[in-house]
């Protein structure tokens, strides 16, 4: 496991400044959520952390010297399963063995579907396979890029429980990008509000897990929402 340090990170595409002066320390094993309006730069921040984009200014460092980028996995908005591979082979990519793949599928409750083709599964099942694929290589850092955005409310709640359970069990460093504040409060130790490419607010969530929608929960939620909408 390793954490991530961002020091005054900036990112621009041509004249378009997407991220400005971001200082963040993400401890290993923590669960951080990044929320904000669309276009606030939250997905770009995730891509920078994943090493898919280079920073324009500032620096990005992993806290463990031994850490390699290869220990970071992303769960994308869309499942990105390879349609020409069976479910099991989709999980067993990038040097993951069949045994680990089967174990990962078991964890998401889809070991019965290992020989199916991706297009035979529902949207929620496909995202569970994508989660299994991300977990199979036992990542140090798992980045979630709005992975539940396209799912219906019930499936989304199921997935949230699944992600929370697996995170508690394996303690990978997690960063969740979402536009759903309730989801962020539900899952994260800390919620970061991004606005116009800068950190606007950092909010620790001190609630016991599994979290219920009680008064404290909603007050956190309202607080964060006000910040996003109010600016």
């Amino acid at each position: 496991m390793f954490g991530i340090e961002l020091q005054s990170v900036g990112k621009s595409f041509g004249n378009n400044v997407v991220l400005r002066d971001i200082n963040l320390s993400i401890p290993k094993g923590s669960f951080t959520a990044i929320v904000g309006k669309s276009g606030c730069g939250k997905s770009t921040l995730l891509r920078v952390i994943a090493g898919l984009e280079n920073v324009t200014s500032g620096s990005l460092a992993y806290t463990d010297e031994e850490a390699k980028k290869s220990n970071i996995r992303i769960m994308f908005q869309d499942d990105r399963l390879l349609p020409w591979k069976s479910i099991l082979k989709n999980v067993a990519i990038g040097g993951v063995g069949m045994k680990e793949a089967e174990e990962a599928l078991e964890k998401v409750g889809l070991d019965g579907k290992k020989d199916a083709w991706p297009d035979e599964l529902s949207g929620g099942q496909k995202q569970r396979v994508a989660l299994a694929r991300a977990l199979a290589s036992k990542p140090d850092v798992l980045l979630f890029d709005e992975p539940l955005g396209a799912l219906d409310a019930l499936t989304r709640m199921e997935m949230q429980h699944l992600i929370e359970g697996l995170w508690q069990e394996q303690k990978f460093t997690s960063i969740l990008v979402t536009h759903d504040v309730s989801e962020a409060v539900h899952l994260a130790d800390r919620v970061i509000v991004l606005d116009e490419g800068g950190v606007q607010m950092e909010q620790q969530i001190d609630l016991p897990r599994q979290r219920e929608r009680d008064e404290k929960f909603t007050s956190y939620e309202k607080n964060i929402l006000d910040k996003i909408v109010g600016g």
Partner: protein
Amino acid sequence: MKKNQWYNNQIFPWLLPIVIVILWQVLGQLNLIKSTMLPTPFEVVEAGIRLFQTGELQENVYISTKRAVIGFAIGGAIGFLLGLFNGTILFFEKLTDTSIQMIRTIPHLALIPLVILWFGIGESAKIFLVAVGVMFPIYINTFSGIKNVDRKLIEMGKVYGMSKWQLFTNIILPGAMPNILVGIRYALGVTWISLIVAETIGSEGGIGYMATTAREFMQMDVVVLTIVLYAILGKLSDFIAKLCEQRLLKWNPAYRKN
């Protein structure tokens, strides 16, 4: 799609060709079509049996098939490799694609006078024409297949630690495969067209040679037989290509048999 209709089975597509052949036979026997104009199907079959007994039929079909296979293999390999390099390496694309697109627009059969001057009328001339004809459809389809592979899947592969070779074999090639197979099927048609023309120009052996000789002796039944032979060989190669599609694209619901 309506799958359970009475016409959705193996036999129905053959109904029309069978009716046409029967009609043709009847019109021929009633002398409404003169057999010097168009021999009846029965006469054509008889010619086939006659040539089979002398061994001419098998020998000429073998020669033509050999030319088709060699020409297809050479042209297909060149087209595929060019498509591969140009689809994956920008340098090669910038270097060669414009030139290839320019040459592509020339009908390859227009090269025949040139080919005769270069190679004479021997085997190499025919194989060359087939190879040139086959190369372009395979090139274009391989190239566009690779170009159209979902970038998001490639990005996923990179994040999930695939090497360049793994990216190619796991994502790029299977992603381009439907297009490549379209190219192959199209190119198979081009193969026989090129061969028909090339073999009638001047050759020793082959179906085209059979046709030219028969024309000189006014053997109408053999002339029609050669046309039928081309049709059968064309359909056969398309059938093989279809089998390849069903095997290689079984992940695609459109090709899956339920």
